C-alpha cells in the first residue's frame, strides 16, 4: 500500500461503561469518534476518543493494554460480536481502523463470563486463568548452572507443535467466544506446550488432571462449536483440546508407577 492515507472516517461507537462495583450500560459516542484515521489501531482510536472525553471533563473509557504488539494478551474486547474484532488471527491492538468503513456502528463490550467479572468498563478480571496455571502449568527442574543446550533431543514435529501451543497469550478470547464459556483451548494450550515435550513428561498426568480440575471450577464444558479457534489471536488449533482430553482419560487409567514406560 502507498503510505498513510489522508482520508479519515467517522464511526459511531457503542461502548460498555461500568463503574467498579456498579451497574453497566452501553453508551453511544458519535462526536468523539469522528475524524479517525484508517491507519490508527483500534486502541489508538480509543485513545483519541479518550483524549476528547478528558477534554470534555468526562471519565475516559477504561481498557486494558500493555505491549500493543499482540503478545501480552491484555487488550481483549468484544468488537461487533467477535472477540478482538473482525480480523482473524489478530489481537485488538493490531486491529486497524481500515477494517471499518465510514459511518460504521461499532459495538464494544468486555468479555462476558461468570469467571471473568468486569472490573471497570472493558476490563475484566482474568485471574481464574492464574488458578489454572498454578495447578500445574510448570515443570520441576533442578536449579544450578544452566544445562547444556540441546542436551535433550526433541523431534522437530513435537517441538513445532509445542511451540504452536505455547503461542497462547492468555487473552481470554476463547472463553469469551465460547457459547459455554469453556476455557478448554486455553487450558489445552497451556498443558500441551509442556506435555508434548520431554521436559514435561515427569508431571504430565498429574498436571493434566490438576489443570483440568482447576479449569472446571471456573468454566463451562466443550461442545465443539469451534468458535475459540476462530477467535484466537494466535490461531491455536482445537486439536490441542483433543490431546488434552486424551491425556485426561489416559491419566485415569495409567499406572503412574510405570508412567515413564509407554
Amino acid at each position, binding site marked *: 500500500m502507498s503510505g498513510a492515507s489522508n482520508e479519515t472516517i467517522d464511526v459511531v461507537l457503542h461502548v460498555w461503561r461500568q463503574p467498579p462495583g456498579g451497574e453497566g450500560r*452501553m453508551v453511544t459516542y458519535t462526536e468523539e469518534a469522528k475524524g479517525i484515521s484508517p491507519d490508527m489501531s483500534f486502541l489508538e482510536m480509543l485513545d483519541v476518543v479518550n483524549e476528547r472525553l478528558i477534554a470534555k471533563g468526562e471519565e475516559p473509557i477504561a481498557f486494558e493494554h500493555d505491549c500493543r504488539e499482540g503478545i501480552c494478551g491484555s487488550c481483549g474486547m468484544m468488537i461487533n460480536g467477535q472477540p478482538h474484532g473482525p480480523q482473524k488471527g489478530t489481537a485488538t491492538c493490531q486491529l486497524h481502523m481500515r477494517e471499518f468503513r465510514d459511518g460504521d456502528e461499532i459495538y464494544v463490550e468486555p468479555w*462476558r463470563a461468570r*469467571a471473568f467479572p468486569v472490573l471497570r468498563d472493558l476490563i475484566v478480571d482474568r485471574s481464574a486463568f492464574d488458578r489454572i496455571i498454578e495447578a500445574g502449568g510448570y515443570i520441576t527442574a533442578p536449579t544450578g548452572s544452566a544445562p547444556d543446550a540441546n542436551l535433550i533431543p526433541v523431534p522437530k514435529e513435537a517441538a513445532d507443535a509445542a511451540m504452536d501451543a505455547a503461542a497462547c497469550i492468555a487473552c481470554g478470547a476463547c472463553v469469551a467466544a465460547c*457459547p459455554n464459556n469453556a476455557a478448554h483451548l486455553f487450558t489445552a494450550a497451556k498443558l500441551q506446550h509442556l506435555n508434548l515435550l520431554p521436559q514435561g513428561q515427569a508431571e504430565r498426568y498429574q498436571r493434566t488432571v490438576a489443570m483440568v*480440575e482447576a479449569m472446571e471450577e*471456573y468454566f463451562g464444558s*466443550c461442545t*465443539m*462449536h469451534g468458535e475459540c479457534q476462530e477467535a484466537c489471536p494466535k490461531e491455536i488449533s482445537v486439536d490441542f483440546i483433543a490431546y488434552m*482430553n486424551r491425556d485426561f482419560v489416559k491419566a485415569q487409567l495409567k499406572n503412574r508407577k510405570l508412567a515413564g514406560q509407554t
Partner: protein
Amino acid sequence: MQTMERQRVAPVHPRPRRPAPWPVEFYRSTVGMKWVMAVSGIFLMGYVFLHMLGNLKLYMGADDINHYGEFLRDLLVPIFPRTVTLWLLRIGLILAFFFHVHSAYRLTRINRRARAEGGYISKRDYQAATIASRSMRMTGVVILLFVLWHLADLTWGTANPDFVRGDVYRNVVASFERPVVSLIYIVANIALGLHLFHGAWSMFQSLGLNNPRWNSVRRGFAAGFAGIVMVGNLSFPIAVLTGVISADDNPDCRVVDGVIETCELYAGEGEG
C-alpha cells in the same frame, strides 16, 4: 488515584471436598462426561444405523420384515433362550441412552452456570458454530420425546389403534397412513440428522481421537453417516404416504398374538 481492592474470583463450580472413587470422580469432570457421552453416542449411532438398515426390509415386503423381527427375537437362541439376547441389547441401549441424556443435562447446567448474567448486549457474530452444533440441546430433546412416542406407537402399540403385536409391516403402514404421525416422524428424523451431523464429528474430539492424518475425513464421515441415516429413515413415512409401501401387499401374511401364523417365507422370490 486510589487502588481498587480486588476480591478473589470465587469458583463457579466448587469441587466437592470429599474425593470419590475414580469412576465417579471421572464422571464428575466435564471431560469425563463428554467421554461418556461420546462412548454412549457411538453405541446409539450403531443402533440407529442398524435400525435404519433393518427397516429397509419394508421395501421387500411383509414376509421379509416380519421374519426379520422374528430373527431379532431368536438371536443367539441355542445359547440363550428366545428374546434374552434382544433384552440384553435393550438394556445396553437403555443404559447408553440414560448416560447420554444424563451427561447432557448435567453439562448443560454447568455451561449455563459458567455464563455471565445477561450475556452480550450486542449481537454475537458466530464464525464456526453451525445450526447443528447450536441446536444440539433442542434436537436432543426432540429425539428424546420422539423415542417415547415411537415406543408407544410401534413397540407397545398404545398410540396405534390398529396395532397387532409381531406384524411389523402392517403396524408401520397403519401408523404412517396417518399424515400427522408421518409428520412427527419426518420432523424427528430431521432433528436426528442434525444431531448426528454434529455428534458424529465432535465425538472424535471428546474421545481425544485426533490425528492430523485423518482429521479431514471426520467432517465427511459425520455428514455421510447423518445423511444416510436421515434419508433412509425419512423414506419410510414418505413411501407409505405416496403408496409405494401399502398394506395391500402380501395379504396372506397373518400374525396372531405375536406369532406369524401364515406367511410363506420368501414366497414371491424375485418380486417385491
